[in-house]
């Protein structure tokens, strides 16, 4: 009798586990934990894992759990390709999350052919035009809009108003921009064309570009060249560690231009590394920081401690909340598509394109972002650039600029570059 009960229980357990397995949605995530951008990549990957755990704990996707496959590709495109193929064929993922501009752009023709919705940490403007890349989505202001907004914010609030540039203004000097970025990196070079276009629009001169590696430990020669060109503002296109190097070298060589960085270029690590040298640096943050008191950030902190207790909270950065933002957008698309009874690529794409005035977790100002509107004509989720600035060693909100309202005639033309 007991043997029968045991067998019955075993069959029941197997049946339950099979039923449980059927109630899962597979999602792939390609991250950089060891490569050139791992300085920011590791934190972002933690955020992705924690947000997936949170969503699963709070009911999943209409009751179905997300089965996350997260893997490192070392910032090497060939590896990203083989990992994606595995995700697609073996794991049967319903949605792909990607990391870098290089791998996202390299896989773009493939995911579009496969009809696989991809949400990337690369906010390259090239990936926002549905006419060219219909299955690529981004979860924040794209790099180009961010760079334009950053330069505009600096020009209007710093160049035109600050005492620092008073004598130059009164002398009738035009401000001059210099771009520090790794020429070979699609990520770093993605918004360069746009920021130069914005400089021309605002009447800012452009100095010679300076090539600074993503893994640079010295940028003195580039700083000296920019100093020679008498630049007033530097656009840093790399990630935080490399930007910190350039800012420290600028400080050491008494090159007192203001610093603007791309959204992966400024975080708490940079503040720690640069100290006084980093004061005044501005960047377009995709969302609020983990310490900020905005809706849902308490959940972020709770899950930081719950899932990764080994990582101290003071080491957590804006990239953790970026991971949450990315997963929340993915979950929103999956939920809508699942409700309609179809989780294939075109349905998830249509679901994401139906988001209008959307906030993460359907909560206003959650994670300090929103509202997002994505359409089948334009995948730029928001024209609002949230600028943060380092002030007295703290990263504080500086200004929010709505680029669509500010440049209504140009906004449509800026799509896709």
């Amino acid at each position, binding site marked *: 009798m007991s043997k029968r009960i045991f067998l019955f229980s075993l069959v029941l357990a197997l049946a339950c586990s099979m039923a449980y397995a059927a109630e*899962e949605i597979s999602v792939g995530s390609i991250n950089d*934990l*060891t490569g050139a951008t791992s300085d920011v990549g*590791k934190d972002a*990957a933690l955020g992705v*894992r924690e947000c*997936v*755990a949170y969503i*699963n704990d709070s009911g999943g996707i209409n009751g179905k*759990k997300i*089965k*996350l*496959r*997260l*893997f*490192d590709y*070392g910032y*090497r*495109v*060939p*590896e990203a*390709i*083989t*990992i994606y*193929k*595995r995700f*697609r*064929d*073996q*794991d049967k993922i319903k949605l792909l999350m990607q990391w870098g501009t*290089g791998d996202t*752009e*390299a896989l*773009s*023709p*493939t995911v579009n*052919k496969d009809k696989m919705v991809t949400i990337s940490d690369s906010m390259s403007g*090239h990936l926002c035009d549905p006419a060219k890349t219909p299955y690529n989505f981004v979860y924040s202001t794209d790099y180009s809009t961010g760079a334009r907004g950053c330069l505009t914010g600096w020009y209007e609030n710093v160049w035109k108003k600050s005492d620092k540039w008073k004598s130059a203004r009164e002398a009738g000097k035009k401000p001059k921009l210099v771009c520090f970025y790794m*020429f*070979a*990196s*699609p990520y770093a*070079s*993605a918004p*360069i*064309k746009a920021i130069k276009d914005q400089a021309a629009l605002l009447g800012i001169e452009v100095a010679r570009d300076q*090539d600074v590696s993503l893994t640079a430990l010295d940028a003195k020669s580039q700083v000296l060249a920019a100093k020679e060109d008498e630049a007033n503002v530097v656009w840093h296109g790399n990630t935080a560690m490399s930007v910190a190097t350039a800012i420290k070298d600028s400080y050491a060589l008494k090159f007192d231009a203001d610093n603007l960085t791309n959204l992966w270029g400024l975080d708490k690590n940079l503040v720690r590394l640069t100290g006084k040298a980093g004061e005044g640096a501005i960047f377009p943050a995709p969302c609020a920081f983990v310490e900020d008191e905005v809706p849902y950030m308490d959940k972020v902190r709770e899950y930081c401690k*719950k*899932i*990764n*207790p*080994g990582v101290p909270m003071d080491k957590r950065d804006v990239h953790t909340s970026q991971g949450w933002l990315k997963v929340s957008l993915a979950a929103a698309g999956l939920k809508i598509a699942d409700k309609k009874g179809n989780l294939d690529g075109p349905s998830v794409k249509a679901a994401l394109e139906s988001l209008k005035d959307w906030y993460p977790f359907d909560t206003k100002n959650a994670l300090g972002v929103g509202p997002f509107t994505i359409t089948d004509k334009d995948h730029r989720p928001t024209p609002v650039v949230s600028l943060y600035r380092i002030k007295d060693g703290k990263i504080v909100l500086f200004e929010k600029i709505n680029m669509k309202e500010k440049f209504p005639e140009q906004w449509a033309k800026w799509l896709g570059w």
Partner: protein
Amino acid sequence: MSYLPCGTYFESYADDQKWWRTNFIKGKMIFMVLLLVAAPYIVGSQWLSVFYTINYYILAALGVQLLIGYCGQITLGHAAFVAVGGYTSAMMVLFLPWPQFMVDAGLVYPISIVCAGFTAGLWSVLFGLPSARVKGFYLIMTTMAAQWITLRLVITQLSKIGGREQSFPLPPGVIKIGPWVIDSDDKIYYFSVILVLICLIAMGNLLRSKMGRAWIAIRDNDIAAETMGVNIVVYKLLAFFVAGFFAGIAGAFWISALFFVSPENYEWFYSLLWVGIILIGGVGSIQGIVFGSAFVVMVFKLLEMSVLSLSDVLMVSYPEWGWVTTKIIFFKESAFGLAIIFFLIYEPNGLSYRYWQIKNYFNLWPFSYTGK
């Protein structure tokens, strides 16, 4: 050269010099070709992408093997020549005003592959010129210079063409050989197999020729080679040209797999990787290139499989243990370096030597004809 099975011997030089000297080897090769043809029907698309990545590494490492393994010219800048091939092919396909009939006939990409080979070959010769005067460590420096100079030129001059400021995506349908549009994994795989077979046969035949023997003589002792009448400058430059030609072919192939070309795909890491491949596979062995490439790609792949299998358990059932998978990933990065160290210590002749020993074990069992 492996020992022959007992009772197998030749009565003419022609027979002795054949590619496939016994029926067993012929059968083995036919079986291998059949296996290569059948692969897409046996495995899924994810493995095809692994296979064509192996094939890409084989094509790229061919030139490295030729220079280091057969000619004794150390190179640490081979990714530069692959980049030249990739960019030549991509730019010819995208920006040259081809007559419509050539586009329709699918001649553009094949022509660009050949041009990529020649351009990369000539570019390689340019950086091979110092080899006439310098050796060893100094040659490493000059080939490394090729890496930096080439990528700098690509980034500052070529990447600006086409309005993207950086990389060229290749629209689906432009990579076409005759009526055959390369747009899926199985087509990319077959294309890679064809290229690898052609290049391996070409390399094998080159090594059996006067040129190949001259290269090996230069490798073994350049002074002795010169006293025997080998013009070492000419043959060294020829080696650089041929190595560059293979690299150009590799670069031209890789754009068909990625539909995309970017300087990021040709970083110095790849130059090191391809040298690592021949160290692991076996220096001075064509089979070594195949074994080394397969080993390197499969190490990364197997680590990926094990980590993802582990995360299947952890991420769903025990998300708080997810950090374990992250920690394991760091091993993946050191695996390649550890493999090279391991091979240098325990298997200095590479995987091809082990394969040679295994073959001989069977051929010599129980007795063999050794010609003595």
